[in-house]
């Protein structure tokens, strides 16, 4: 019990002292996660929108495939990307292994199905009358699509929030492709794993508190905007 209380109190002190190493770790985590979410959004939102909005042969198969990819373990992605970017891999010459770019590539693969499936769900939930109304007002396909997109905006933001939450909390890809290099690729989760291995819990608990705080803050922000709309 003492271990938990002591670690927690020391962690709070560490957070309040704005420890330089801790700040750097948080910085790396945030920038890598933001980049991964951004790229996943740029690819996943149009992909999800297209799948939900258009009719094409094999649509159900694509949705099933994306749903299956939701369960992809991070270590499998880590291994897969490693095979491509390690020195012996076909992209070995690019020297990507143990860089933030490698982490971003792996994390984009991890959350792309989340962004796409959440977008599909958000678009599919939109009342068919919006499409019909836009068409009766003379809108072309693109203008009708923009109406649907606008109506689904909160669902799509939820997709991005969920994706950010997933990448900032993952450890397998960051460890395998980032290498946990101090000051470069050490994220909150890899640092926590390392501190646990060393038997030193203060930094690990401090990072855990920050991680939860970020997640809470994001959801709070999302609910705030949604609440403003609902009023």
């Amino acid at each position, binding site marked *: 019990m003492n271990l938990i209380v002591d670690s927690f109190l020391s962690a709070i002190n560490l957070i309040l002292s704005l420890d330089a190493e801790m700040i750097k770790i948080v910085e790396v985590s945030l920038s890598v996660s933001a980049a991964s979410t951004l790229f996943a959004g740029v690819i996943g939102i149009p992909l999800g929108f297209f799948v939900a909005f258009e009719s094409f042969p094999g649509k159900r198969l694509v949705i099933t495939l994306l749903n299956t990819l939701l369960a992809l373990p991070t270590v499998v992605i880590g291994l897969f990307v490693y095979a491509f970017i390690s020195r012996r891999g076909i992209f070995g010459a690019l020297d990507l292994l143990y860089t933030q770019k490698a982490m971003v590539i792996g994390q984009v693969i991890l959350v792309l199905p989340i962004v796409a499936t959440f977008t599909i769900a958000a678009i599919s939930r939109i009342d068919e009358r919006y499409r019909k109304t836009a068409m009766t*007002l*003379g809108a072309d396909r693109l203008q009708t699509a923009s109406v649907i997109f606008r109506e689904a905006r909160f669902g799509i933001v939820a997709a991005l929030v969920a994706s950010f939450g997933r990448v900032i909390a993952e450890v397998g890809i960051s460890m395998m492709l980032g290498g946990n290099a101090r000051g470069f690729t050490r994220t909150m989760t890899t640092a926590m794993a390392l501190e646990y291995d060393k038997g030193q819990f203060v930094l690990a608990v401090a990072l855990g508190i920050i991680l939860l705080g970020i997640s809470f803050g994001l959801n709070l922000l999302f609910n705030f905007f949604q609440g403003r709309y609902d009023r």
Partner: protein
Amino acid sequence: MTLYRLSQLTKTYNDRTVLDIPFLEIEGGKIYALMGPNGAGKTTLLNILAFLDVPTGGSLYFNSRPVQFSDAALQPLRKEVAMVDQHPILFTTTVYKNLEFGLKVRKIARGERERMINEALEMVGMQEFAQAPAHRLSGGETQRVALARAFAVAPKVLLCDEPTANVDEENQAIILRILKQINELKGISILFTTHDRSQALSLAQEILLLNRGRIVTAANLDCEAPRRKLAGNPAG
């Protein structure tokens, strides 16, 4: 002037014919009431006239021109008509922006847009709601804004699917008055579906009775005889 001409027009769903109209002409500038029991094909006909649905067979002329049922050909035609659903849905933004949508689609300049929106809102008595969030309006207000949004784009014809079915008596009277005004002041043709015979008789100049996909009666109500006959006709 003939606005629509339908010839041998049919619509079939899974081998079931829901619409079969050998010939029908709809004239411009008039108010038509389309009556008939549930499942008679009223909404299907409305969707075809709004260029949202494609008939299975036959031909349709709009403004004396044959309608080609390709997506590319239908999209510009949709700008000529406006439709208000039985349960209209407003975009989740302000009332003003709801009305602005159709005008932006038609690339109407900002100043002119503002004038047209204000005029339309005034006509339905909703000008003070211009900046209100549209999804917060009551059923009657929603119906009135949907009407304003539809006729703000100055269509040749306004198609309304049971415009008063889901509003209280007070709003029913307001909506009927608005429809009459749209027709008289703007010269916009109106075709509305209804189950209410007295409403059809009070508002429409022509009544079309649809049953099992077929037009069973087309009556001009400028003559007293069909007016009396329809008043006692149980169809619809």
